[in-house]
């Protein structure tokens, strides 16, 4: 079994430093399927936790960068769930039920503030990184980076376009151009398509941003600023998560609050649980990233 070709998957800096001796070792080693998997995992590890850059032993910056990317992925998973709760403010029955008790009203305010602050912190941290990456890509005429950087915007525009198109045609279905039994499945299919489209778009877009960040030469000062923003975003996510928990439990125990919503309690509990679990998992990922980043930053400072 040949595994030398897997070396192409390692980062350029790693190959510059280790490729020759690694090849020499592989020529002597009895290669098995385990070796294949091990070399593959080694390539992933070398990208995720780079120990080298530009042939020199570095690199705290790369570790802080990894932490920042973890927070970005955490926020991308957290935000849709948080926004779902946030958007309930536009539903009057929910707002009325929330205002029935001061504790739920305050908890809800914290959800809104947490979600908004997390968004602003991610934007504040992301803009300098994007600016620096684009500037170095234009200067170095790196077309691949520019295409990758444009991908999230193109995907979002495509998703908006498809969403707008579906919204345009669905009311026609409701106005008698299809029989009533068809409307339910059609709306369900449309919702499924939109869900897949936005989820796939968000994943692909975030992956593109990750690649741009990893492949660009961005200074340590910018990543330190971004790490501060990532800390702020993570704190905001944790606050929003705690407030969502309190808000949901509050609604459950405020007399008459759930009844005033006029929806099935089981469905409501299921939806709330799903949102809380999603927020919890992704806020946890962000906390993990921030802890790693701060530990690395303080070690570097020492």
């Amino acid at each position, binding site marked *: 079994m040949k595994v030398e070709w897997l070396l192409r998957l390692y980062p350029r800096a*790693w190959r510059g430093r*280790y490729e*020759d*001796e*690694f*090849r*020499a*070792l*592989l020529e*002597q*080693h009895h290669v098995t399927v*385990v*070796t294949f998997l*091990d*070399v*593959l*995992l*080694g*390539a992933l*590890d*070398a990208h995720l936790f780079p*120990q*080298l850059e530009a042939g020199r*032993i*570095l690199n705290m910056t790369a570790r802080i960068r990894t932490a920042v990317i973890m927070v970005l992925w955490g926020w991308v998973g957290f935000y849709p769930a948080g926004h779902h709760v946030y958007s309930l403010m536009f539903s009057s029955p929910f707002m009325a039920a929330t205002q029935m008790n001061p504790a739920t009203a305050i908890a809800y305010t914290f959800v809104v503030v947490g979600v908004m602050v997390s968004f602003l912190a991610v934007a504040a941290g992301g803009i300098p990184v994007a600016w620096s990456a684009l500037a170095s890509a234009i200067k170095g005429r790196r077309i691949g980076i520019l295409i990758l950087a444009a991908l999230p915007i193109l995907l979002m525009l495509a998703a908006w376009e498809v969403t707008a198109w579906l919204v345009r045609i669905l009311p026609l279905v409701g106005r008698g151009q299809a029989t009533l039994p068809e409307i339910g499945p059609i709306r369900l299919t449309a919702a499924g398509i939109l869900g897949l489209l936005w989820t796939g778009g968000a994943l692909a877009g975030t992956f593109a941003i990750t690649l741009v960040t990893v492949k660009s030469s961005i200074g340590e000062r910018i990543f330190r600023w971004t790490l501060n923003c990532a800390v702020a975003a993570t704190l905001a996510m944790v606050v929003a998560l705690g407030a969502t928990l309190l808000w949901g439990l509050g609604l459950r125990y405020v007399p008459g609050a759930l009844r005033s919503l006029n929806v099935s309690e089981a469905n409501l509990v299921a939806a709330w649980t799903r949102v809380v679990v999603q927020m919890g998992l992704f806020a946890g990922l962000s906390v993990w990233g921030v802890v790693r980043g701060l530990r690395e930053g303080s*070690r570097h400072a020492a």
Partner: protein
Amino acid sequence: MSSGLSDLGRFSDPSILILASLSEGPKHGYAMMQDIQAFAGVSLEPGTLYGALARLERRGWIKSEPAEDRRRPYSLSGEGAAAAREQLLRLERIATVGLGRLRTT
């Protein structure tokens, strides 16, 4: 600088094996794999070996020597030798306590 190996995650065990192997003198990658197989019965795979080597080199615990026909030997630095001694003594204490307890049961 960290003095332990626990923050190396899945590379902490391979790292102690590498440090133990290099305690004898400089070795290149394949020689280390054979030596570790001989004294510990552990078959390190190349990806894991180089993941651990890069981490140890970054910490300054090992240093690379000039390459000989593409094969680059590594040796322990002074700090690496101290760290290896500390880690091996810790393992020795664990083994002594464990074996002692087994004898009394």
